[in-house]
């Protein structure tokens, strides 16, 4: 039997490194958030946070950030260099997105061919790439708000950078939830992301 590889090794490796990094970043980030909540009524239950206390969570957050950023640069770089971004994720037109989204919501969007993404997938994967870039930049603006004046201004100041960081985290978590639900509906896609085919 012969196979065609749907997900090359570099996509699979960077996907799983990213998955691990995102989980560690989000759970340690929740612990950091709890030290001084932006929204007075909202705290994350400590059972789902990482680090034990503020200092521990910060150590995790500022260690794993290197893994997230390095992997993200490699992933985006190889996507551009290999032409995968253009071939698989582009173009996304508003029209194709609307028709595929309506088909998906009516349960009529098929996943027979896992080597081709529908418009909803293309949009979601592009959006999550932009979202992670925004998370990195807003995080940098919070960490080094004095050293990067332009970035601080772009984020609307130090306090607002925290809100941007939180909003981008929320988008990422929402993506994660839908992503897992879709994998549960189309388990073959999990196999493709592990074995490549």
């Amino acid at each position, binding site marked *: 039997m012969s196979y065609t590889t749907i997900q090359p090794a570099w996509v699979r490796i960077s996907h799983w490194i990213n998955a691990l990094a995102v989980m560690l970043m989000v759970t340690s980030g929740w612990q950091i958030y709890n030290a001084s909540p932006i929204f007075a009524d909202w705290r994350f239950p400590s059972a789902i946070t990482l680090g034990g206390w*503020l200092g*521990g969570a910060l150590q995790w957050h500022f260690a794993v950030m290197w893994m997230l950023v390095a992997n993200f640069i490699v992933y985006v770089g190889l996507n551009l260099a290999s032409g995968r971004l253009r071939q698989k994720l582009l173009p996304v037109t508003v029209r194709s997105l609307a028709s595929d989204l309506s088909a998906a919501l009516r349960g*009529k969007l098929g996943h027979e061919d896992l080597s081709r993404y529908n418009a909803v997938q293309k949009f979601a994967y592009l959006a999550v790439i932009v979202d992670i870039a925004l998370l990195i930049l807003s995080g940098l603006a919070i960490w080094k708000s004095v*050293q990067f004046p332009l970035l601080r201004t772009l984020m609307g100041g*130090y306090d607002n950078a925290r809100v941007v960081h939180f909003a981008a985290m929320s988008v990422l978590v929402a993506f994660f939830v839908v992503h897992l639900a879709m994998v549960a509906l189309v388990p073959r896609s999990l196999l493709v992301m592990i074995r490549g085919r």
Partner: protein
Amino acid sequence: MTLRNRSGKLSAFAASHAQTIIKDARGELKNPARRLLGQRILTLGGIALLSGCDLSNDKSVNTMLRKMSSFNDDVQALLFSPKTLAPTYAESMITRPFPFNAFYDIDDVPEVDAASYRLQVSGLANGKRVWTLDELRALPQESQITRHICIEGWSAIGRWDGVRFAEFLKRAGADITAKYVSLHCADNYWTSIDMPTALHPQTQLTLRYDGATLPPKYGFPMKLRIPTKLGYKNPKHIVAISVTNDYPGGYWENQGYNWFGGS
């Protein structure tokens, strides 16, 4: 796609792929090296599960996290520019009331007697070693309205007046090629900073808050205001300053906060 249709496809999928998975697995198991690797991966996973996945209590994980934190000290020293100033703000933007924050309650704020107060300078310095409050007040004074950023995430804007720390260090005859300046406080708090930050133009030996004598809750009689660093690097009630090349650590830093603590 209807549900029935999907489950039909699922079982067809499972049937066709189960074969290939088993075939792959058999291929892997034929190779003794691969078998050993598989065994080891399973053992590692088993140990991870047995330890309850409590990564935070694992010694080697903690060592790795501490190493990354000290790597981040170096990165921050590189990113730090002695010329980049923290943003300054208008009077109207001052946060009132400015939050009190310490490792103890506001009722436990130390009361330092102004008349008997002495600031001791030690270590690599060959100038004046003991300073009274009046002597500090007689030095040239500067004013700044800057943002105080707490490691917890909140921030507040305040106005601080005092002596430029670089000017004080010069008069104290400090060796400015030394690596660290350590600061000890009347409330037994202590911390330390890098020399480039000590010499930054906005690093201030603060004597006044919001136009009046620095009140006890904000660090009477004197605190170090460093707008390029987080709040825990801005010690209050300072009684001793030491210039040194030996890493001095700090109250929070020794418990795990990042040492450089830059913003």
